[in-house]
């Protein structure tokens, strides 16, 4: 970033917020290393729960559109996430869904394969480490000496940020590659021409195989699917051709194929390429063409070797996909 240029401009007001998130996205902002100093030089963080102590009230009292850029990470899991999404939408000029959870639902979104009741039963009644003979479940309101405490409402479904408010840009990744954030941030700071609102930024159009250095051919016939640890990876051949499901061909590039570079198949955290609404469905139909069988029973047997297909194909994308959730 060109310091002379940015110094001349008034500093941007920046917010970073987490909804239903693991914290990894916030860490990825810190992971910009020495570039963080450039970011801080160009922008004043006005709200960032992981790094500074500011109350929701303070944010609610800010004038509308007074924040230039909000990086909203995490999915919408409860009424608190929803409330802050709406508040930040009103206060922010450029609202970015930052990371796989805000963009597509991410790992928390896998809860859409279950529902609120089943989750509460498991967590508060049945888990091996739970001792809750009175079966006490979270309450919306708790009366204490000092008054009534309100708890956020746990929704039945996990939503993406875009499901609940209008989003200007999406930066994919679990978490986004820090270099990509720096690029996008620089573009905003320097006032470069931004793509039309609604675009995915900080990623490319082609999918991961394009950048992947592994050898790939059209011979993707599979008699049995393996989990990564079940094969002796030759470190050279496309994972799919070794029978290991790699989401690379259905996943937008931008991360530098970092998992495959580390000899692990891509799990799809960068989400679908442009024009694709449901990467899980795309990948399943691609996998369908790879099954090397002639008889229906043989096909069934081979499919049986795919462990947890729902979690595999929709690992990061369930709430944002056409599927959305398990049908109830």
């Amino acid at each position, binding site marked *: 970033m060109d310091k002379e240029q940015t110094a001349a401009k008034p500093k941007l007001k920046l917010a970073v917020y987490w909804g239903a998130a693991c914290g990894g996205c916030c860490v990825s902002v810190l992971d910009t290393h020495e570039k963080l100093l450039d970011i801080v030089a160009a922008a004043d963080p006005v709200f960032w729960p992981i790094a500074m102590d500011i109350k929701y009230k303070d944010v609610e009292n800010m004038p509308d559109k007074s924040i230039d850029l909000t990086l909203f990470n995490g999915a919408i899991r409860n009424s608190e996430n929803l409330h802050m999404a709406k508040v930040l939408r009103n206060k922010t000029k450029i609202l970015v869904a930052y990371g796989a959870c805000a963009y597509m639902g991410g790992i928390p979104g896998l809860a859409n394969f279950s529902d609120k009741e089943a989750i509460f039963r498991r967590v508060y009644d049945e888990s091996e480490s739970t001792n809750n003979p009175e079966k006490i479940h979270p309450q919306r309101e708790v009366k204490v000496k000092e008054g009534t405490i309100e708890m956020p409402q746990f929704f039945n479904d996990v939503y993406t940020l875009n499901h609940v408010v209008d989003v200007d840009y999406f930066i994919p990744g679990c978490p986004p590659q820090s270099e990509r954030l720096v690029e996008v941030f620089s573009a905003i700071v320097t006032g470069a021409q931004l793509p039309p609102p609604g675009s995915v930024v900080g990623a490319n159009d082609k999918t991961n195989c394009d950048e992947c250095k592994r050898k790939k051919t059209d011979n993707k016939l599979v008699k049995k699917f393996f989990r990564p640890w079940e094969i002796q990876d030759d470190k050279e051949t496309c994972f799919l051709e070794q029978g290991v499901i790699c989401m690379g061909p259905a996943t937008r590039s931008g991360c530098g194929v970092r998992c495959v570079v580390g000899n692990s198949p891509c799990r799809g955290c960068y989400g679908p390429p442009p024009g694709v609404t449901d990467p899980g469905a795309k990948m399943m139909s691609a996998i369908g*063409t790879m099954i090397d069988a002639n008889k229906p029973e043989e096909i069934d047997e081979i499919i049986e070797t795919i462990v947890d297909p729902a979690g595999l194909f929709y690992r990061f994308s369930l709430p944002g996909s*056409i599927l959305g959730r398990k049908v109830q």
Partner: protein
Amino acid sequence: MEEPRIGVYICWCGTNIAKMVDVEAVASEVSSMPHVVLAKNYKYMCSDPGQELIIKDIKVHNLNRVIVAACSPRIHELTFRTACEKAGINPYLFEMANIREQDSWVHTDRSEATKKAIDLVIAAIRRVRFHEALEKRSVSVNPATLVIGGGIAGMTASLEIAASGKQVYLVEKADHLGGMVAQLDLTFPHLSSAQQIIHPLIQRVKNNPNIKVFLNTQIQQVHGYIGNFNTTILQNGNESVEIEFGNIIAAVGLKPFDPVVIPEYGYKKIPDVVTSVEFEQMLLSGLIQTSEGKDPRNVAIIHCVGSRNKKFHEYCSRVCCMTALKYVHQIRAALPDANIFEVYADMRAYGKGHEEFYAHTTHKQIIFLMFDQQTGLPRIRKAGAADKCNIIIEMDELLSGISIEVPVDMVVLMTNMEAHDDVKEVVRSIGVSLCGNQFFIEKHPKLDPVATTTGGVYIVGGCQGPKDIPDSVSQARAAAARILATIAQESVPVEVTTAQVNELLCCGCQTCVRVCPYSAVSYDESKKSSVVNEVLCKGCGTCGAACPAGAIKCKHFTDSQILAEIEGIMSLSYKY
């Protein structure tokens, strides 16, 4: 995209639709949908006034999208597309909703059927918004034709095409022309000479300057597409010749089934048990004699050998019943005193003059014995020294219900006709498919029986399914007519709704390459992208469904079109 202006037409189909679907309600329900300019109902949309209605509305109301909710698009899509074209809008901006076969005909509750019709029309309205104008394409046609197989079917087709001055390459695997007919003596039902049918044909083929015959020749992989094929043929197994041609006729016929696999019949173990093809040789030589050189006094003819039985072939060979009756006449003429036994399972006399031939044959003093083809095959054994015959047939006779022994001196096995051993290589080299019985599959069993799903490739004669000479010849002439028509056009239309790879999105995973049933997709190493050969592409959509990167667009079946249609039918809306 221009603002869609949609005209919707709900057809009554007389009472076919109107009695089960409230067509007026459907029209009024959808008339207020966004982009719908008008919604009308009419008695017969496919009639001339129905089409005129569309044409007039397109002009008057400036429509740029048209929907007809009527019968199956298989029946009238083309009719309405043509009407749209006449009115000056691209035919692919039309969409049809099937409210007859998929609705009025299959439901009994009028209000439910009406609701379903509304859903189907809403789906079409949502879809048609995303339709794009597509341009017709055509390719030029090389006027030469490759005919594979020099039997009666292949030769007939060759002569027909050559007669119009066009080049024919006739490739025959054997060292002579004529196929099965050249091995026959007389033919049913008129008992005319097969040799007199086939020899003049062979001469005409040999003498025709437009027909180049390659004997002892097998074809290699054929490359290209309708109008523009080429291949290298290996003559006498070594000399290679390059040929180019625009159309292909496969006429490789069938071969006789080998009955050694039926233990009951003792073929090749018991002397004087012969196949029909061997018996034809005997007839051609003019002498019906046992292996000992004697006149047989008793002759049995066993039907359905290897046919109509799950253990061998489930299908009927169609010509053997009549051939067996033909033998009755020939044996009776040669051996007036012989006893002739027709050992049959069912008598199939389906063709022109065949039933009369059957009736006529029954007056030839013969004995009909019936067996159960599934459970009661006759058992043939060599007679003992004391018996006054060579062979004994044991059988459970079905009509009398008793088990009998038939003493005979000769048995003729009416063998099934089955595919050649190399048929799989033949179909692979010309890009067509085989059915479960290993017969070549036609494009449509009723409406297009000599074409295949591969443009420019036709199938005639026995290889399409067992048949007699008249049927083989009819097919040959039909295919020749089809080919001459495309040659006369000089160009042929090719599929419009093809697949296209967006090179900016293709990641080079090559998932699509192997899935194409028409070998239309290949990977271009230099572009680092797959490419679709749009002339070969049939628009089946397989590659588009398989591409995980969403890089393949199947024209007229794009994701946005299909999703809009599904959304419409489910009246769902998802955000994205």
